[in-house]
């Protein structure tokens, strides 16, 4: 064996191992990828995670249910409102509280705004990953309008902490409807600009079409959800299959594409922004009257048992699993975070492509690192 190795040219035989990260601009956080290369071809990727592990699940065991909500903001900070909603829905399901329509509609509108702003930031950073700095400025410029809406109603820009068990913290601001309508009007004009800038760009096509193919079978067996899974044709939209909040009373279509490459995942997200705007337009004019929060006991105690609730965040399916032993603190909380699962497919779809494609594929997976580490 040893003799055999000696005869072969070491340049052909050896794999070259480099560290990408933990501090790297295109990993969007502290993710360390140990990449084995042969020349320029990626042979293997080993993600090393845990650089910003904060033990959120363990922390949840020592605090009360209303306090958990502000921690879930800090998991997937780009879909903070949807994370909050997941915990609230789970607590409400456990207590068997009927939520008034007004709260459901407010939550749905806020969730869809969150989805749009998340996809805007993704578009901005994805463009920047592929070398188009203009995208970054344009994406953030439009995102600012949604953040202003959040700031006016919720008080926070990114980490909104707007939900509480039994409703929302404050009623919507009087300007809310007008601002949202203005934004939709504005963004319907702007979104075609995104297409002209990036979607139709020949350099972008060359770098994304056919890169990082994920087949439907693999998407299902790896458990890939969200736009990444739907780009491969995996119908996994929780909003459609298991409607929560006000999603059962509106008509919207699940965006599905079948090619499964980087370009397809890109198009899925762009189409989702259009669809989110459709959802908001259906709801914004008929927010029912009523209270913005159900009166809850000052100390919330869940009955003994196990509860699970899943929601569709901007990146996939978030599951919140609570085991309660009847106290004011949960016995155990587990978050099934979409990014952790989506990261697992990174190695599989990047093998055999060039190292420059690694950045493109990583961008198209839309990883948020605090959600992986939790």
């Amino acid at each position: 064996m040893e003799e055999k190795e000696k005869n072969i040219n070491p340049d052909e035989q050896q794999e070259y191992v480099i560290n990408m990260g933990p501090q790297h601009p295109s990993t969007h956080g502290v993710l360390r990828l140990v990449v084995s290369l042969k020349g320029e071809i990626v042979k293997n990727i080993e993600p090393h995670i845990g650089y910003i592990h904060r033990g959120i699940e363990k922390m949840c065991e020592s605090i009360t249910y209303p306090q958990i909500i502000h921690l879930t903001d800090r998991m997937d900070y780009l879909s903070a409102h949807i994370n909050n909603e997941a915990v609230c829905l789970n607590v409400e399901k456990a207590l068997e509280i009927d939520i008034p329509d007004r709260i459901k509609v407010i939550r749905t509108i806020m969730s869809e705004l969150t989805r749009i702003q998340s996809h805007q930031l993704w578009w901005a950073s994805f463009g920047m990953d592929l070398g188009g700095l203009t995208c970054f400025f344009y994406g953030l410029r439009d995102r600012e309008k949604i953040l202003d809406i959040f700031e006016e109603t919720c008080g926070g820009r990114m980490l909104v902490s707007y939900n509480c068990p039994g409703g929302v913290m404050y009623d919507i601001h009087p300007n809310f409807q007008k601002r949202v309508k203005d934004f939709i009007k504005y963004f319907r004009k702007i979104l075609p600009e995104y297409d002209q800038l990036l979607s139709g760009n020949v350099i972008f096509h060359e770098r994304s079409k056919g890169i990082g193919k994920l087949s439907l079978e693999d998407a299902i067996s790896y458990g890939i959800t969200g736009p990444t899974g739907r780009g491969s044709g995996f119908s996994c939209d929780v909003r459609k299959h298991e409607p929560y909040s006000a999603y059962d009373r509106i008509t919207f279509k699940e965006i599905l594409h079948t090619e499964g490459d980087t370009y397809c995942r890109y198009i899925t997200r762009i189409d989702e922004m259009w669809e989110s705007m459709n959802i908001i337009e259906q709801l914004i004019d008929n927010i029912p009257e009523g209270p913005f929060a159900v009166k809850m006991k000052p100390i919330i105690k869940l009955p003994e048992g196990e509860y699970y609730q899943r929601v569709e965040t901007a990146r996939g399916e978030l599951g919140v699993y609570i085991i309660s032993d009847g106290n004011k603190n949960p016995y155990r909380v587990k978050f099934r975070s979409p990014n952790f699962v989506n990261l697992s497919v990174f190695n599989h779809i990047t093998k055999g492509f060039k190292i420059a494609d690694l950045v493109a594929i990583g961008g198209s997976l839309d990883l948020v690192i605090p959600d992986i580490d939790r």
Partner: protein
Amino acid sequence: MRSIINYLKEIIFGVWSLLKGMKVTGSYFFRPSTIVTQKYPGNRKDLVMFDRFKGEVVMPHNEKNEHKCTGCGICEINCPNGTIEIITKSIITEDGKKKRAIDKHIYRLGMCTFCALCVKTCPSNALAFSQKFEHAVFNRALLIKTLNKPGSQLMKGVE
């Protein structure tokens, strides 16, 4: 022959797609009113934050230096990360009874996550959010604040 035509077509399409993108960016030269950048900190004087903006927790005092905090400690219990600490003292009221009142309402801004649970759950609405957002200081000790002003008293009628 056909492959050459396709090749040329691809080049023309490529250049056209680039020009289309440049048209978008170039058009902003001719409509500068759509540029949205704020000139911070130049506009600090007339920068107005939204009413609900969660800047920092404050305890509003009226002109007679009175606040509404009774020292019940609900904000301290509700705070998820120990930002608030209430030190109470017992005072003797005008009619000779012993009563609990706050000595210090300590608020550690450096630990606050702005979840608004303290403001929301306060039974006497003693706490509020201010719109101040420039929190940077040179000394970490300055982030520990005492919310009740020195010599302040409980507002009459608040139990």
